[in-house]
């Protein structure tokens, strides 16, 4: 299934600014995605945290994505 990946902040730099589309196994989880991203972009390992949001909500490791989902990569936030 196709999953669009949208990185922000330092995640965008780690991925060289690109939104990418990944082709994942049906019912792949956030944990699976995290593993794939860390293999492709080892700099993600060095971050203080790495979170993911779908439909503007944080989703945990066990969350299973669906075809067409847009997953936003949320590196450590630092507003304020």
């Amino acid at each position: 299934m196709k999953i669009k990946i949208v990185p922000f902040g330092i995640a965008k730099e780690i991925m060289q600014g690109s939104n990418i589309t990944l082709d994942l196994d049906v019912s792949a989880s956030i944990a699976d995605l995290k593993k794939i991203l860390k293999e492709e972009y080892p700099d993600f390992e060095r971050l203080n945290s790495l979170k993911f949001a779908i439909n503007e909500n944080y989703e945990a490791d066990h969350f299973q994505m669906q075809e067409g989902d847009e997953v936003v990569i949320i590196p450590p936030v630092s507003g304020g």
Partner: protein
Amino acid sequence: MIDIQISENPLVPQTCQDAVADPSAGGAVIFLGTVRNQTKGKKVIKLEFESYVPMAVKEMHKIAETIVTKWGALHVSMHHRIGLLEVGEIPVIIAVATAHRQAAFEACQYAINTLKETVPIWKKEIFEDGAVWVSAHP
């Protein structure tokens, strides 16, 4: 009333203050963040804020709703600026009005602490010799 804004324009404290003004409030506590000229002794030239705006607004609303529910706030106003900011400019304003002042202090502090933990906004410190995404690395 809950007033949440993310804006590329300079923030105006009076706007947040007016948003929480109420004759049944005994007091308002306002937190103003400002861009510091240094961090850990290193001179800061500018800050750049980036946000995943729709989700940031949603997370800020959650914070405001918690404040209304838990501290009985009459009004909450939270404005966050994005884009390039100079030293001394204001990246964030949080104003909370409550019937009694103690609750306003607690709620305002909860708001800024939680904003820094959950709201998808990222700050890049720009130095003379480079730039760093704040809090990204250990």
